[in-house]
């Protein structure tokens, strides 16, 4: 196993490092020389107006797409310049929750969560059963839900199962795309609590995209604002007040009242 930094500098270890990212779709320039660093233990929110390339950036981070130029370093390594086994091992170190859950619709909840565990080919079925049940309990689902198909469960449960699947391989980094979109306020509140709690107990680093102000205020420790093809601000939420960028000021109006309530 490669040497990891010692515990005292764990806080500073950069888990995800985006350097000079440029992305274009045809004539539409989405990112231009964008830089972002995420350290271990961060909960960082990516905000910006609709269509400004937040999800695209997430897809770059998890290696689904490749920027036109620039480097994406995940755990200090460039995923696109690795051999296959190492790449797979790297991919097991992060978990992704897609916006729609992206559960395998032909598999039951149990099989969805068991899928990444079975792919490891290290465990027998009784162990997998225990692990899946453990993950289900972690996201506060009932054992009897395990038999259901994704089409038979509600939106909130889909998100929970998606989270359980993302957590199955004990990832260090959790990437969430709109984790609370489509949930009612109560459910989304519970979901945020769940993520915060899991973050604490499992020592996760979380990167997420959101449009929901409540999610932002209650979950994010740091906010990265994507605007004008750049990250124009990358700081704690309450420090955003010092920014003079019109988008941030505009944006800040809407969350000021919420912040005052904190």
């Amino acid at each position, binding site marked *: 196993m490669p040497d990891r930094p010692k515990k005292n500098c764990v806080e500073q270890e950069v888990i995800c490092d985006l350097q000079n990212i440029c992305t274009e779709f045809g004539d539409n320039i989405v990112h231009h020389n964008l830089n972002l660093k995420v350290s271990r233990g961060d909960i960082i929110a990516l905000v910006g107006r609709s269509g400004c390339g937040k999800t695209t950036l997430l897809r770059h981070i998890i290696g689904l797409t490749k920027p036109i130029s620039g480097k994406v370093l995940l755990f200090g390594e460039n995923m696109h310049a690795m051999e296959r086994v190492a790449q797979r091992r790297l991919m097991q170190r992060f978990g992704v929750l897609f916006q729609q859950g992206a559960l395998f619709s032909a598999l039951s909840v149990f099989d969805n969560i068991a899928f990444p565990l079975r792919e490891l080919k290290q*465990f027998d079925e*009784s162990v997998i*059963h*225990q692990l899946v049940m453990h993950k289900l309990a972690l996201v506060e689902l009932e054992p009897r839900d395990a038999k259901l198909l994704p089409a038979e469960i509600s939106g909130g449960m889909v998100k929970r199962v998606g989270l359980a699947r993302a957590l199955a391989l004990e990832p260090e980094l959790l990437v969430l795309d709109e984790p609370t979109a489509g949930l009612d306020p109560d459910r989304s509140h519970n979901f945020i609590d769940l993520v915060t709690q899991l973050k604490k107990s499992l020592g996760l680093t979380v990167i997420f995209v959101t449009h929901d102000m409540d999610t932002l205020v209650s979950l994010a420790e740091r906010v990265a604002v994507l605007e004008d093809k750049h990250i124009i601000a990358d700081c704690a939420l309450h420090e955003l007040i010092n920014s003079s960028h019109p988008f941030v000021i505009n944006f800040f109006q809407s969350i000021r009242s919420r912040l005052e309530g904190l």
Partner: protein
Amino acid sequence: MAAASFRVTQDDKGRHHVQLFGQWSLRAPFNDFAKLKKSLQPFFADNFTKWDLLEVDQLDAAGAATLLSSWGNKLNDNISIKSEHAELFNTLIGLTKKTDKKARADWLSPLNSLGKGVIQLMHHFAEFSRLLVSLLLEIAYLFRQPQDFPWREFSANVYKSGVNALPVTALLGFMIGIVMGYLMSKQLHTFGADVYIVNILGLSIIRELGPVLMAVLVAGRSGSAMTAQIGVMRVTDEIDALTTMGISRTLRIVLPKVLGLTFVSPLLVLWTSSWALAGGAFASNLELGISFRFFFDYLPLVVQPINLTLSLIKGLMFGFVVALVACHFGLRIKPNTESLSNSTTSSVVTAISGVIVVNAVFAILTRGIGV
């Protein structure tokens, strides 16, 4: 921190002490629990082995469950663990799979599945006839309200399943024509009956091969596309959206597809048959030296024109069957990938089988006509 490892010592009584170190966790990238379990197997088998987990840096559910399953899903006095890990072990013990009661052999199960199959078949028939009836009702409605006819969708379907199918039907028709022409001219030539190639090719292609070939191609090409399209519309709730706008799904989705394909199929039959005949004429020209001029002059004399009418009627029926079967299976799709693929397969298979059955019935009914 380091990857999971262990050290075995033996005390004076010959008992093993297994001491575990490092990260017993999936986080450590080079852990392989299957291998660890295998190398620890002799100690798991020995009831007197002492287990010492006090030096473990990190233990996650995967590591704990692997150990636990080898210990028979319980902790005992021989196992010493850190207090912070005890909770994890206890949780996992609570989650042990209860072994299912062994299912008794069910002698009636073949009968059961047969019954299920029959019931499912009846459901299919019921739904299919419901679809057919609602389609007829919509057509009746359109006679009263002609301005509601979905012309745009109709023409889109004519274009997609008709015009776009021209190249492939032409190519396949031509090639089959060549093959048949070549084989038959060989046979006929041995009898010196060269000129009968026109009779055989003309009758078989115009009456049978053209329509069936067209139907098979259209079922594979347009039928599957229709099923998948309707299926995805169901999955994404588009059909419900249509209904809430007060638009009948039969009128807007099923009817244009069925009428479009029914309208365009006879034309496709003509097209396919012409290319097949051209292929046949080409082969007989090469093999038997029959000129194209003679072939096509002689054709109407030996093949009665009624055969062409029959073939166009067949085209109408086949188009109708293929499109209706495709819509039927499309509307049954449930929102998952398995159902989508199953229904698309069933749609094509049923459409082709249906076409062949209809063809057989039609052949019996018209056995005295045109031959």
